[in-house]
């Protein structure tokens, strides 16, 4: 897979410079990790929209299921955290199987149906108290382990884990988009009927994209539960796991692969580090205004805006 020099430099900076420069500042590292969690969901959400052509309001279902599966596996069976995280993703895929009937719905009908599923999973987590701990939730969820004397549950360790997870997701997203499936999926955007005529099984492809998106969100949910060490239904299936990633993806540019990640990190850090220090209660107002301005002046989001700016500079040079 081709990675540009700039891309390699950014990856190297993310792995080396960020821990070296900011690693001692727990507060900033905490914000960065939280923003990357939002970024992971935003990426998965944008993948479903871009490649599957579906707008989801129910990604909190995958996030919550992934978190619960991973937490329960580590707590009840003693499974290692990383294996449980992967199975958290698988759990989210299994949860998405029950959503298959709504794949035939389009637009707002699909979005609302998947939102209803999220609510159903929340009720299951609340009522199935013998397994999930009910509304009281699960406390003392196992943390990330030590690896060769390095504590992965610390801020730097957690950051490196989520960074690796997100890079793997980006690579998977790129590979899918560049594959034959990706071409078929993009063709479906223009005309689903036309692609069906040439023999593309659009429902199957959409289902596959739903599985991939669910898996990614489930793994991020699983990461979050081992990072926070606490879980309860209201938190696991909170609407915030849908709204914030959508805002981040739109802000960054949901049509691009990196847009949702860049959007999440930018929106979260600017809001928490700048706006919040200026307006402690009510800083979200500024963020809202900024989002509106972004949609008006650059409907494609931040990434296309940055690219346009960079092209203009190259042309001027």
């Amino acid at each position, binding site marked *: 897979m081709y990675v540009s020099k700039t891309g390699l430099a950014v990856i190297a900076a993310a792995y080396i410079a960020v821990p070296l420069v900011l690693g001692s*500042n*727990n*507060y900033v590292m*905490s*914000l960065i*990790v*939280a923003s990357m*969690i939002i970024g992971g969901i935003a990426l998965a959400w944008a993948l479903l929209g871009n490649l599957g052509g579906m707008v989801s309001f129910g990604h909190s279902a995958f996030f919550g299921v992934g978190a619960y599966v991973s937490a329960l596996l580590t707590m009840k069976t003693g499974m290692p955290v990383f294996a449980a995280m992967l199975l958290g993703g698988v759990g989210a895929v299994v949860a998405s199987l029950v959503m298959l009937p709504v794949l035939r719905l389009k637009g707002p009908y699909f979005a609302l149906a998947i939102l209803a599923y999220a609510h159903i999973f929340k*009720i299951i987590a*609340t*009522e199935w108290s013998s397994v999930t701990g*009910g*509304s*009281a*939730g699960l*406390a*003392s969820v196992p943390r990330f382990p030590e690896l060769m004397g390095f504590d992965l549950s610390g801020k730097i360790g957690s950051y490196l884990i989520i960074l690796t997870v997100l890079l793997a997701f980006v690579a998977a997203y790129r590979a899918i988009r560049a594959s034959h499936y990706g071409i078929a999926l993009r063709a479906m955007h223009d005309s689903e009927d036309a692609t069906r005529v040439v023999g593309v099984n659009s429902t199957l492809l959409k289902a596959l994209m739903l599985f991939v998106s669910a898996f990614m969100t489930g793994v991020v949910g699983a990461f*979050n539960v081992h990072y*926070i*060490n*606490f879980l*309860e239904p*209201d*938190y696991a299936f909170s609407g*915030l796991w849908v709204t914030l990633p959508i805002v981040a993806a739109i802000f960054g540019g949901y049509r691009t692969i990196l847009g949702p990640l860049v959007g999440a990190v930018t929106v979260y850090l600017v809001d*928490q580090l700048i706006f*919040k220090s200026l307006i*402690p*209660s*009510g800083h*979200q107002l500024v963020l809202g205004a900024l989002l509106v301005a972004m949609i008006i002046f650059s409907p494609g989001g931040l990434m296309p805006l940055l690219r346009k700016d960079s092209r203009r500079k190259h042309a001027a040079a």
Partner: protein
Amino acid sequence: MDWNCIIRSKLGLAALALSLTAGVASAEELLVGAEIPLTGSLARVGSGMNEGISVAVEVFNKTNGKHTIKVITADDESAPAKAIAAVEKLAGQGVVAITGGYGSNNIGPASDAANKLGLPYITSGGVDDSLTERGIKTFFRINNTAGYRKAMVGLLADMKVKSASVIYSTKEATADLAKDVQKELTAQGMTVGMHAFDPAITDFKPIINKIRLQDKSEVILMAGYENDYVGILRAAKVLKPDVKAMIGVWSLATPKMVADFPDLMPSVYGTALLPFPAEFKSADGKLFADAYKKLYNKEPDYLGQFGYVQSMILFEAIARAADKGTLKKGGVVEELAKTDRETLIGRVRFNDKGDNINFVHRMGQHQNGKIAIVWPSDAATGKMNFPGVPW
């Protein structure tokens, strides 16, 4: 200028410098962090607790005479990840301990982060039992589900009723309390009907109807929040079940409910630390009330009282640790663990898990636009109006 003169002037300068340094040291403020939800879904309760914390700062700084406390507040926006970030931000600003926290899902991760940083964390905002079962030695809590359960069960014992129906929200704190109450009442031989409801519902008529026609209980117990109580009481007022009392817990016997829902509240019971209008008999209570009225120009509520008590206990522990020179050697945790004193919420003493073993709430009853404390008898300010319902 001779040598004597030079030495005298140098000594004079040194003495002046020393006295100035000493002055700075004695006037040094001890920094305490308040991690609290001031925005988001818990903003109202967080703001109430924050008022109590501010009053505690005012009273402590006025009465201690030796140390002064400065509180730095960080809004956790009612979100666990931001609660962790808030604690870490406060730690970076040099606080010696954290007061605040609301909602067990925020308190859990935030107190965990504080523990990792070696900071004591005291709260009254989360009653989930798992918080004190984590083996964290830096965590302290002044209230718990057991205190609310004891108050409800104690009131029912005074009423001498034999059956009860419990309507409870499936949220963590309310569900825990409802199940604890059920267990204890069943053990006492009472008949208990359980009726869970999703926090999103607003129409309680089906549940009330079920209680009226099927349970036929003597009293209805409600474990919910303000909107839930209003919905339940409205439904009960329409269907008029044949019960002798409507009993709730937190957020019900409050001045706000007296003012906002005068038609729904008569004879309704809820947990209350103080009657309304508030009567403070102790010196500490009077100090609190005066400072609260000065700062906020209103009657203090239970959130303010809890915030005040947890913060005063913490500030006193910090002062004792500072006196012993153990402030940065785990002294605050040691001093908090030794706490044993009368407060506005009764005597506070922590067990080895950091839970207040003496916490027992009081029960108040809405009577003629006021709130009278009716249980326990030694704290009562009025006679229980029983049987009595709002319809």
